[in-house]
């Protein structure tokens, strides 16, 4: 079964075509890096997969269902590129809200909250207001809410944004831990070295089309890094 799929998707915003016949899929348990220059359509693809937007043509599915159905998002963890958190809330209260929305309740909810707080290294800030967190800590909180409910699929948009080098390394560990328990992963990022470390497949978007997709080992030539391959494919 596929964790997600875009099949022949076209999407325009007014006269601007954001996606032009994009197709890619992610088998369950796999990790796909969605790459592309700025404005290539990565965030649009993620928004279609989350049901925030509808394709003009083609099909999007999330965990086997159309993303516009709320049930398709049960078991999905999402970290947006532009993370806007309610500054007035405490860290714990925010996680309680999202744990509830992830379908957790009672003791299980509290246990999972404690677990993600511990995992992301913000347990000592649980009682603080979110407004008082630094950008890096807020990003850790973003990860924490994405991990609630032990998601079957993680959608991460520029997950390393705002993280210091230790945070980047920690984030890599958290992602690998999630993968180890069978979680599927779609990461949109400009940090190609991280994609190389966390994903086994990539799809490279350029001007709204797929420039290349497949196993990283099939795309990268001998002696090339993923960055070299990316530049070669985008410039071609």
């Amino acid at each position, binding site marked *: 079964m596929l964790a997600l799929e875009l099949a022949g998707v076209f999407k325009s915003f007014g006269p601007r075509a954001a996606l032009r016949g994009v197709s890619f899929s992610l088998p369950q348990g796999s990790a796909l890096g969605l790459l592309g220059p700025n404005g290539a359509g990565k965030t649009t693809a993620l928004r279609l997969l989350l*049901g925030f*937007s509808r394709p003009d043509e083609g099909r999007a599915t999330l965990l086997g269902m159309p993303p516009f159905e709320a049930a398709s*998002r049960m078991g*999905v963890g*999402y970290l*947006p590129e532009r993370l806007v958190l309610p500054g*007035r809330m405490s860290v714990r209260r925010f996680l309680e809200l*999202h744990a509830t929305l*992830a379908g957790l309740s009672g003791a299980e909810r509290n246990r999972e909250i404690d677990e993600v707080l511990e995992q992301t290294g913000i347990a000592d800030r649980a009682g603080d207001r979110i407004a008082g967190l630094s950008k890096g800590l807020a990003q850790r909180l973003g990860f924490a809410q994405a991990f609630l409910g032990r998601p079957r699929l993680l959608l991460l948009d520029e997950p390393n944004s705002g993280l210091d080098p230790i945070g980047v390394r920690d984030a890599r560990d958290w992602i690998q831990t999630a993968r180890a328990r069978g979680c599927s992963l779609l990461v949109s990022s400009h940090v190609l070295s991280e994609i190389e470390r966390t994903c086994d497949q990539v799809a490279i978007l350029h001007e709204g089309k797929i420039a290349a997709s497949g196993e990283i080992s099939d795309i990268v030539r001998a002696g090339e890094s993923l960055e070299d391959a990316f530049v070669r494919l985008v410039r071609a």
Partner: protein
Amino acid sequence: MTLTTGTAFRALAGEAFADAIRRRIVPVIVVISLLSLMAVDGCTRCATGQVDVNGQVVPMADLAGWTGMVIFSALALWTMVLAGVVASDHLSHPLTDGSAALSLARPVSRNTFALSRLAGTLAISYATGALLLGGTATLLAVRTGAAPGAALWAGAACAAGSFTVACLSMTSSLWLPQIATALLVFASVGAVAAVNLVGQFGAELGGFLGAIEHYGPPLATSVIVALGPWIEPAAVRGEPLELAVRSALWCAASGGLLLASFHRLELGR
């Protein structure tokens, strides 16, 4: 792991209410409401004695019903305007700043999200309405003997009107900036109320204005007709049952329009 619609609604409505009471407009609402109640207190003190109207001596008690109706109706309309103004960015703001994305990425339907934001808005306006209208009705009942039952019906009419205004305001806020939506609320409620008043106590209306009077939301009419027992019931025009049905239809239509509009909206552009 399951998430029922009720659980999601309760969680999000709680947050929407917490958002609403932190709005800068809330202290303003509280101050205006208290000032309004003080004004009502002053207006209802002189319920005894006599007054000279065009050379005719009229006992104040005879005017108390009209005074009460004017005060109560004005405050009911203010409550409806308030519902529209609070609604003018309560749904659109979290969409614009991106904070809605995390909730909508959960197994939460758009209907649940929109209705929870509406509930947050209405909690503020209903609480204000309860304070203002309840306080006014109590003062009038104690000082002039105005029937509280009529005030209850008028309060229900105000609640229905507030729901309609809030839904329409939220819907237009999906396309218009907040200030434009708020101005539209003032203009629309004012215009409908003016048409209702002319239709109630003035000439028979025809054409577009007549259509508003006969088919539009009976924002002022339903409140005035409910308060009929405070004056001579024959002095007000309108069938309470027909008005109740029309109010309910407008609630359903405006709520449906809000949900349909939000359903079609492209989020996060």
